[in-house]
């Protein structure tokens, strides 16, 4: 019985980690848009390449934040949560 419970915990943690990383779609689209617009801007004004590139990198880094929150949650679910939940389960039995 305990094995099944621990198995369910491990499986659900892995599923949750996978589901959390769906958030990676958002930053992907957002950064793609940002880079596309930066390319357009450089094409229109090649002399402003340096400024556009630094601003684009900053914007990409900030747009990446939501994806990184998802990554942190996925990492917590894979490496930290199973041990925690199994401890809780064993202590309640």
């Amino acid at each position, binding site marked *: 019985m305990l094995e099944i419970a621990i198995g369910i915990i491990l499986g659900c943690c892995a599923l949750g980690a996978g589901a959390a990383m769906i958030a990676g779609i958002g930053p992907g689209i957002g950064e793609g848009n940002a880079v596309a617009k930066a390319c357009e801007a450089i094409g229109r004004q090649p002399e402003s390449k340096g400024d556009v590139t630094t601003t684009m*990198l900053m914007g990409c*880094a900030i747009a990446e*934040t939501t994806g*990184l*929150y998802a*990554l*942190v949650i996925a990492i917590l679910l894979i490496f930290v949560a199973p041990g925690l939940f199994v401890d809780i389960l064993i202590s309640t039995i």
Partner: protein
Amino acid sequence: MIASRKFKAIDALYILFMIIPILAVILLKIFTAPSSDGISITGAMIFFEINMPFQKLFITEAQLNSWAVMISVTFLCLYMTHGIRAGTVLKRHHFAEIIAEKLQSMVAANMGEYFSGFSPFIAAILLLSAFSSLLTLVGLYPPTSDLNVVAGWAILVFILITYYKFKCGPVVYVKSFANPPLMAPLNIISEVATPVSMAFRHYGNVLSGSVISVLVAFGLQSLSKMIFGFLPGFLGNFPFLQIGIPAVLSIYFDIFSGCLQAYIFAMLTMLYISGGFPAELYEKKIQGGN
């Protein structure tokens, strides 16, 4: 005018002190790392614990590595700048001057006149972060992939932001949140989210790079076992595909991403500190005082 180009004993001493901390950490890692077969993803190793009033203080690999980086960077700066004076012709002095001027112009462009004294702090953050991430190149645990280290820097930045927001007194500080008044709860949340997102951004980028590198290396090992498994004896188990291919990923994740994150952390520090400071009100207050 002409400075002596002789290689002095003090140069050798500084270079020695630059290399010794890194070597010491590598040796420590070799002697204390638990032997493991295969590839594993672990956090920072805990060397020993100190009993403190509320909680145990853990001295981890991340802390030791960041101390080593600090000592190393200090001696790098000493090596590059010692004996510097007007009209020198040594290459390293020119290099140091270029770095210092670039940083000062960057700080002046992003933070304005009032914060021109901030360039040493920004330079320290930039160098510490970049060299910490670059530690992966010698096979060490990068301190920036430990959340505690980066969260410490982010909290330091948060204290600075709050200090400069408080320059015009607590009333202005409280009023800055209620603008417009209905948005006050959201403004408070975004204020608290600033250090959290800064810490998570840096830590997440470095950690995700190392996790992906490990996964790719592990996959290549299995793949080469599958393809070259028919070879006899030692050759069958040798991971041929692991030669060279992970290095391509390392160029992006370790070198480019590490330096980019250091730049972004320093840039955000500058923008947040100068953005929160009520410059016009402070000027009025100074003039009113006189």
